[in-house]
Structure formats: structure tokens, C-alpha cells
């Protein structure tokens, strides 16, 4: 075995840092999309490493549906303070108030889809020319076709059949005025890689990822956290259970898992033995066979 050898986590880290530096060098006004989930937390950690001892040279952007887990916001605010970054909030509630978005109706109403409009408006208002996202190709079949540097036209749309070829480690970020890029530095990471990396680097996470007691209810075979603004069907009843979140998104579409996992080691062991994908708990992906592709074409994360 050669003495010059990187294990796969080091190799992935090195690739992601390279891509973040390319973004800082190729674009004038990039930003980092931050959801408060573990993937975007890893992204912030990688950005710290990429530019140390300088600060992260771009602001964090949070698209806020107003339907958050409280823990996510607490974590976000303390992280922003720690790294001294600027925080830009794009509010879905504001888009609704301005008449730019219409609230979904009915029992399964979610603001997940509405985020796209707010995201595109935020990108336009701040003239961001590149938005770094924590999307991974192993998450979903449409994401598996995504480039690291993903070109968006002036309407913010993705054209999956006309993507630029991406070879070696040469990334073409050239664009015309009004267009932007989505860049996915952790494209090649899997869910397990992300957890192993969090473990290896001892990265602090929101408490939601660890076991805790919460009011939950069952809908269509999925357990959701209860919040005051969520409508219940007559047959649905709120119970107290010990749960944790495997992914964190908008509270209305984030399924929770029954779990006693209280440490990173526990979580890794749990994931190693689980037989369901993390997005298996996401109501937003279950809407149709190509739900993710359709949202992505419109400009979703």
C-alpha cells in the first residue's frame, strides 16, 4: 500500500473544499443555502476549513417557511454568531403576504413547494450568482443526475436534458447576466459519509437529531411532529413518543423515527442497520414518481 493514501472521507472532504474554493474564485456574489439540517451544517464546517484562517467569504441564506422546529432556529442563530457570517432570511410568509405565493389548502398543506418562489426571489433580490447547496446525489433519483455546477437560466430553472458536461475537476461557471448556478459540493457523499464525518469531526448538531420526547401523530404510515398550525383528521390523535429526526426540513413534511439513539455512535449504528432511505420519511417526495425532478426543474434546492 502506498504511503500517500487518503481514506474516502478525506478524499470527499478534499473534493468539497476544492469546489467551495472554486465557487469563491469564479463567482462575484455567492451564498450558502442553510436549512439547519445536518447536510448544510456539514457544508458550513467544510467552508470553515476551506477558507481558514479567513472567514467564510459568503453569507448564509435561510429560506424560512415559518413552519420550523424551534431547535433549528436556535441552532442557526448560534452558528451564525460563532462563525461571524451574515445571515439572509427569505420568508415564505412574506411571499404569501405580498401575494407572490398562495398557501396550499387541505389537510396535507405544506409550504415546502412554496419555498421555491421565495428562494428564487431571494436570489434575485440579493443578486446572488451562485448558491451553494447541501444536496447529495444518493438522496433521490433525480438528484443522481445533477452536476456539481448546475446551471440555472434566467427563470431559475434546471434543464436536466441539457446539462453541461462536467469532466475531471474542471468546473465551468460561466454564465450570462441574470442566470445563476447551484453548486453542490457534497454531491458524492452518502448519508453514511455525512454521519461518519460528523462523528470524525465532532460537529455539534441540533438536539432534534437525538432521541427526545415529542407530541407526534400518524398520517399515511408516517409519523409527524405535531405543531399548533397543523390540522388533524378526526381519526388522527396526538401521542407522546420518544423520537428523533433523520432529516430536518419543514415541520409539516418531516417524518420522525422512533429511536433511542442518544449519541453519534448510536445514530451511525442505527443507520447501518436501517432498511429505509432517509427521504423515505419525506412527504414531499411521495407526491409522485418524479416529484423531486418536477420541483428541481422549477428551481427547488
Amino acid at each position, binding site marked *: 500500500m502506498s504511503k*500517500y*493514501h487518503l481514506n474516502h472521507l478525506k478524499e470527499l472532504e478534499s473534493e468539497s473544499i476544492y469546489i467551495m474554493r472554486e465557487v469563491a*474564485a469564479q463567482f462575484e456574489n455567492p451564498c450558502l443555502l442553510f436549512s439547519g439540517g445536518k447536510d448544510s451544517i456539514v457544508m458550513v464546517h467544510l467552508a470553515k476549513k476551506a477558507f481558514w484562517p479567513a472567514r467564510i467569504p459568503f453569507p448564509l441564506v435561510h429560506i424560512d417557511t415559518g413552519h420550523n422546529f424551534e431547535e433549528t432556529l436556535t441552532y442557526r442563530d448560534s452558528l451564525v454568531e460563532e462563525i461571524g457570517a451574515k445571515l439572509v432570511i427569505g420568508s415564505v410568509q412574506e411571499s404569501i403576504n405580498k401575494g407572490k405565493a398562495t398557501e396550499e389548502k387541505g389537510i396535507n398543506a405544506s409550504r415546502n413547494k412554496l419555498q421555491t418562489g421565495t428562494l428564487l426571489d431571494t436570489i434575485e433580490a440579493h443578486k446572488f450568482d451562485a448558491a451553494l447547496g447541501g444536496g447529495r446525489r444518493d438522496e433521490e433519483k433525480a438528484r443522481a443526475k445533477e452536476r456539481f455546477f448546475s446551471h440555472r437560466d434566467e427563470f431559475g430553472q434546471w434543464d436536466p436534458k441539457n446539462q453541461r458536461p462536467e*469532466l*475531471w475537476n474542471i468546473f*465551468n461557471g460561466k454564465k450570462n447576466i441574470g442566470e445563476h448556478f447551484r453548486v453542490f459540493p457534497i454531491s458524492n457523499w*452518502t448519508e453514511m459519509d455525512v454521519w461518519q464525518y460528523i*462523528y470524525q469531526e465532532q460537529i455539534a448538531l441540533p438536539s432534534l437529531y437525538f432521541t427526545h420526547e415529542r407530541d407526534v401523530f400518524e398520517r399515511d404510515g408516517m409519523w409527524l411532529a405535531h405543531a399548533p398550525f397543523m390540522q388533524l383528521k378526526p381519526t388522527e390523535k396526538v401521542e407522546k413518543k420518544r423520537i428523533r429526526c433523520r432529516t430536518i426540513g419543514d415541520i409539516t413534511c418531516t417524518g420522525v423515527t422512533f429511536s433511542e439513539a442518544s449519541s453519534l455512535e448510536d445514530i451511525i449504528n442505527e443507520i447501518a442497520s436501517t*432498511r429505509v432511505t432517509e427521504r423515505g420519511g419525506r412527504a414531499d417526495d411521495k407526491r409522485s*414518481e418524479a416529484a423531486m425532478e418536477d420541483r428541481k426543474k422549477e428551481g427547488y434546492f
Partner: protein
Amino acid sequence: MSQFEQFDNKGYLNMDLLRFTTAGSVDDGKSTLIGRLLYDSKSIFEDQLEAVERDSKRRGMDEMNLALLTDGLRDEREQGITIDVAYRYFATPKRKFIIADTPGHIQYTRNMVTGASTANLAIILIDARHGVIEQTFRHSYIASLLRIPHLAVCVNKMDLVNFDEEVFNKIREDYSAFSTKLDVKDIRFVPISALKGDNVVDRSTNMNWYDGPTLMHILENIYIAGDYNYTEGRFPVQTIIRPYNDEYHDYRGYAGRIAGGVFKPGDEVVVLPSGFTTKIKAIDTYKESIPEAFPPQSVTIRLEDEIDISRGGMIAHTENQPQSSQDIEMMICWMGEKPLTVRGKYVVKHTTADCKCMVQSIEYKVDVNTMNHIACVENLKLNDIAKVKIRTTQALHFDSYSKNRITGSLILIEEGSNSTVGVGMII
């Protein structure tokens, strides 16, 4: 106290990464093979399987169609074809794998080139019933052109030829006869049935005449640590790190990823294009300095002297420098809708540098089905492969692609559309 079975964290943290690509023509069973690798290595989850079962039934299929696992776009699923490169991930206790699944259609050669550019290994699929066909030449030639170090030639659908040893031997002979023209040293042959699972992950009981390894055994054990260049020090500068804070007031570091060689503090280096020489003061990663750096590490290098370097510059060992020239000869694969023409102007991107260039001449075009050279060509169309000469507006610092896949590769960008229209491998 943990209720969970202990997962081997230490083992996992020590795995390495193999990137491979799959090539085959339409209906050779590529998607099925990948589905099989994922399925038999237990990398497919229950909800994914349920979705595939549901979708298979919806399409009126009797058996579960593993291809639906990889065909992600709506059009692909509806037409039953693969349009774009899809990346797939799985891990065994030995390795983590990244698959670039590339379509086999002739018009999608650019996707195969894309998938091949980062691969350590290519799987070439041959349908046992059809043997070595034109597309096999094309796929193998591309693998060789992109210098994928290892090839695994899988003769698939052995179940449809009664697992006949003669069929396998004939194909191996045919392939070996033409592969002498290729620049690949390591070629292995495996008879498989992706559909039934023979010799993919589990050893076949239908082909006792075959005593070689299964495909998975090859993927898990092939030696890849030598696939980088560790001899010629190359560090293309991406960006400059200047903290402007009190603690690191005078800090000035050059951020980049090692493209070749091993760098250590104290090394004599030359800074290109200025040609000034200095020494490496320190090599930094996050909150620490390291004693040496090698490919593909991302690091920040500090130098003893204040020298003017910007993005696109290169730090190299003084005693072993790259070529620097404005005149560059290369093999090119054309990916643009509009043809490449002599005297055509494009933007070049090479490592972290970019400038403009003009095409000086097309030396010859390669007939990828015969590997013959075609002279006197006026222009290049989509998917053409040719040898061309370009002249750049400023000198590039490069090595031949055969020495270094990072400093020996470049892309051409069309002005106006900003599309990536050509990819070059420097000779």
C-alpha cells in the same frame, strides 16, 4: 449503554474510494447490472424496492425491473432509456464505490467521456449473444483515450447462451485481438448474468469452468493507490487566503489542491508564470500545519518570499517543471452542437487558469470503430474525436495527459452560450 449492534467505525473510516464507469450499448443490461450490484451488496433500501416494484407493475412488467432504480428522469423512465450520466453509491466492508452510469447510445458519447474522466476502472459490457460489436470498440477506445487504468470486460447474458464456455472464450479472443491497439495495461474478463446474478457478487454455479474472480471481487481488490502522479510537484493556485484580522494580520496563503507530486516545507519551488523561485514555508490545513501534502489533498501553501501569484498560477518543484507554451497539441472530443472549425475561437479552462484560444489545425480525425486516422478534415461534429493544435493567448503550464490527468486536461467553452463544447487531452 447502547442498544445497537456496534458498527465498525474504525474500519469504515479506513476505507478507500473506487470510482468506476459502466459502458455498453442499448440493451446490454447496464442498468440491470448496476441494479444487481446494489441489490446483492444490500445497498437498496426497502422503500426504493417498493417503489421499483410499484413502477414495474404500473408498466405491466412481470419481474421487477432493476433498471428503474437508476433511470431517474421522467423521460428516461417513460422511454426505458438512460439519457444522462447518473451517479450511484454503494459500499462494502472493503470499499466505497461511486458509479458513473453512462448511456450507451451513440449520440451520447459525450456522457461516456464525462463518466470516464474521473474513473479508476471501466466496466465494458458485451452481450454474449452478439459478441464484440462496433460500440464495444467505441467504448473501449474512449476508456483508453481517457486513460482509465483498469478495464473489466463483462460478457453478460450468459444465461441466454446456456452458460457456454466456448461463447465466452470466443469473445475474449476477439476482444484481446483488437485491444492490443489500446493503451490499457490491465484488462480482465468475467462471464456474468446480471439478470440472474451469476458472477456479479455471488459466484455462479452455472459456470464451473470459470475459475477467475467475480466482478465484485475485482472491484473490491483492484490496486488503485498508484493512479495519481506522485513524482512531479504541481499545485495550481485556486484563490488567495488573506484573513485581514488581528490574529493573522500578515497571513498570505495560496489555496489549491495538489495535482501532482509530494510537497514539503523547505522545498524549492518555482512560481509560474513569473518564474521566481522561493521555498515553501508551511503547508496548512484547518487550524494546523502538515509535514507533507500529496494528491488529491486540498491545502493552503505559504511561501518564504512575497511573490505575486494569482489564480491560474502554478507552484511547481524547481528541478522538475511543467511545460509552458501557447501552442498545444491534444486529442479532443467534440461535444458542441455547432461544429469545431479551424480558426474557431474558444475560451480554454485548464486547471485553474482560463484564457482564449484559436484552433490552428485539425491533424486528423479518429474513426472510433476502426481506430483509423482520417486526414484532411475541415470541421468536427458532435462526438467526433480528433487530434488538433490550438494557440492560446497566454502560456499554459501543463504536462501530457499520459503523465498527469489533472494538468494534462482542458475544456473548451463556446462564447455566447458558455457551453462546454470540447474536452482536450494534451499530448
